C-alpha cells in the first residue's frame, strides 16, 4: 500500500505525538481544555469534510452533533446501556439522521441548501425542547456517575479521570484524523473536491454527484454524531443547548478560521477560537466584541483560513 501525500501524513503523526506529550507538561486545567478542543475538533473535521472538501455549506450541523449526543446519552440514561455501546449508538444516530436529511436536503444547492439544513436543525432543536420530559430540555440531563466507569476488553476505564478522558479523546481524534486522511487524500477525496470545484463537469465525467454528496453528507453527519456522543458521555451531560443554531455557527467558524479544505485546519481553528474565547472571557465581559475584531484581522491576513492561506502561499501539500 502506498501512502499518498507522505509529507502531510508525517505532519499528522508529528501533531498526534505532540498532543500526546502535552498531557505531561500542561496543567490539569489545560489538559481539560485540550480534551474539549479535541472533541470539538472532531466535530469540525466532520464539518470540514462536507464544507471544505465537498463545498456544501450546511447551517444545521449542530443537529448531527446533538443526534449523537442524545442517542448515546439517552441510551445510557434511560436504557442503562454501557458507554461503549452507547457511543456506537451515537455514531449511528448522527449517520442515519444525516443520511435521511441528506436524501431531502441535497435536492437543493447553494443558498437553498443552507436554508433547508438550517430549517431541519431548528426543527430538531425545537423537538429537544418540546420533548423536555425525555430530553431534559434546557436544563439537560446529568448522566449517573456510576455508569461512567466501564470495562473494555478487561481494562477498567474511569471517565471521571481527566487523564483517561484526554487519552480517549486523543485516540478517537487520531482515528478520525487518519481515517479522513485516507478519504480526503485518496480517489474519493478527489471526487469530493471535483464536486466542489465544478459539479456539472464532475457529472459530465460520468459520476453521480447526488450519491457522492450524499456519501459526504452521511460521513460528515456520522463524524459529527461521534463527536456529540463523545462529548456527552465524556462530560456526563446532555442538553438542548448543543442543538442550538449557535453550535452550527461555531463549527463553521472553527473550520473557516483553521482553513476549509485542509486536514489539520479544523484542529487549528478550534484551538485558536476556543482558547481565544476562554482567555478573553476571563478578562472582559465584552469578549465577543474583541473576538469579532480578531476574526476580522485573521480574515484579512488569512483569507482562506490559517492553514488554507499557508497552503496557497507556501505549502501546497498542506491539503
Amino acid at each position, binding site marked *: 500500500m502506498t501512502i499518498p501525500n507522505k509529507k502531510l501524513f508525517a505532519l499528522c503523526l508529528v501533531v498526534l505525538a505532540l498532543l500526546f506529550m502535552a498531557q505531561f507538561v500542561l496543567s490539569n486545567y489545560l489538559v481539560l481544555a485540550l480534551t474539549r478542543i479535541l472533541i470539538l475538533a472532531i466535530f469540525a473535521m466532520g464539518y470540514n469534510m462536507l464544507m471544505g472538501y465537498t463545498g456544501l455549506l450546511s447551517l444545521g450541523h449542530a443537529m448531527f452533533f446533538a443526534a449523537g449526543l442524545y442517542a448515546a446519552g439517552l441510551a445510557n440514561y434511560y436504557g442503562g446501556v454501557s458507554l461503549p455501546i452507547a457511543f456506537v449508538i451515537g455514531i449511528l444516530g448522527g449517520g442515519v439522521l444525516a443520511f435521511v436529511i441528506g436524501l431531502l436536503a441535497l435536492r437543493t444547492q447553494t443558498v437553498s441548501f443552507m436554508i433547508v439544513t438550517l430549517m431541519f436543525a431548528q426543527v430538531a432543536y425545537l423537538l429537544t425542547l418540546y420533548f423536555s420530559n425525555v430530553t431534559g430540555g434546557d436544563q439537560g440531563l446529568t448522566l449517573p456517575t456510576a455508569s461512567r466507569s466501564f470495562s473494555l476488553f478487561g481494562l477498567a476505564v474511569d471517565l471521571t479521570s481527566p487523564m483517561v478522558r484526554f487519552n480517549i479523546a486523543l485516540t478517537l481524534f487520531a482515528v478520525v484524523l487518519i481515517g479522513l486522511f485516507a478519504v480526503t487524500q485518496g*480517489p474519493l477525496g*478527489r471526487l469530493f473536491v471535483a464536486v*466542489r*470545484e465544478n459539479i456539472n463537469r464532475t*457529472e459530465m*465525467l*460520468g459520476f*453521480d454527484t447526488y450519491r457522492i454528496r450524499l456519501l459526504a453528507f452521511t460521513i460528515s453527519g456520522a463524524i459529527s454524531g461521534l463527536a456529540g456522543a463523545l462529548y456527552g458521555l465524556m462530560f456526563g451531560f446532555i442538553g438542548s443547548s448543543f442543538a442550538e443554531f449557535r453550535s452550527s455557527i461555531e463549527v463553521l467558524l472553527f473550520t473557516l478560521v483553521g482553513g476549509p479544505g485542509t486536514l489539520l485546519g479544523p484542529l487549528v481553528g478550534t484551538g485558536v477560537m476556543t482558547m481565544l474565547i476562554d482567555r478573553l472571557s476571563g478578562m472582559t465581559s465584552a469578549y465577543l466584541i474583541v473576538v469579532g475584531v480578531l476574526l476580522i484581522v485573521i480574515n484579512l491576513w488569512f483569507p482562506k483560513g490559517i492553514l488554507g492561506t499557508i497552503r496557497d502561499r507556501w505549502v501546497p501539500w498542506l491539503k
Partner: protein
Amino acid sequence: MSVMTVEGFDAFYGRSQALRGFSVELRGGEVLCLLGRNGAGKTTALKAIMGTIRRTAGRIVLDGRDLSALPAYEIPRAGIAHVPQGRRLFAELTVAENLEIGLSTRKSSRRALDYALGLFPVLTERMHQRSGTLSGGEQTMLTMARAMCIEPAVILLDEPTEGLMPSAIAGIREAVIRLRDNGVAVLLVEQRVDAVLPVADRVAFMDHGEIKARFTIDEVRNDLSLLHRYVGVGA
C-alpha cells in the same frame, strides 16, 4: 458503420426551441465538424447528446446501445466524452489528479493515461502543478487528455481552439488528427474555419437549431462559397 447515431433531437430553452430535429451519424475514425453562426445551436447539440439539457424528442444510439433514457452521468460511462467550451478543469487539483478522475470514470487502464499523455507530452512535465495555474493552451490539452482517459468511442469537442495562440492551436489540431487515426469518432464544434479544414472529413452547417446542409470536406474545399453562404465567412 456508424458508431453513434443521433436522431431527431428537439430541445428548448424555456419557450425558445434550441434544437429542431437535430440528427447526425458518426463513424469511427472520422471527424464531423458542426459549423454555424453564434446561437445556431452547436453547443446546445453537444449538451443534448450529453444529456445536460432536456430533450423533448429524439434518440441516441452508441455502438448499437440505446442511451436515450440514461441519466447524464451514464453517458460518459457508455463511451462518449465531452470537452466543453472554456475548459472547465478542477482548478484546485493537480494535473495528475484531474487525469486520475478521468481514469476512474470507466476504471481505465494505465495504457489510457500513457496514450493521453502521448497526445500532449507537455503535460508530463506539469503532473504535480495545480491545473488552474496552467496556460490556456495547456488547460485545453489537459481537458482533452482527461477526456481521453475515459477511453471514449466518441469525443465531442466544443471550440477547443478558442482563445489559443497559433502554436497551441497546431498542437490541438495534431491531437485531433491522431485521435481520428486511432479510430475515435470526433464531433467538432468550431467557429474558426481555418481550424476545421485540415482535420474534418465532413461538415454540417447549422442554423436556428437544425442542420441546414451537409458536405464532405472535399466539397467544401472545392467550393469555398459554401462557407460564405452558410456561416457568412470566407476561408
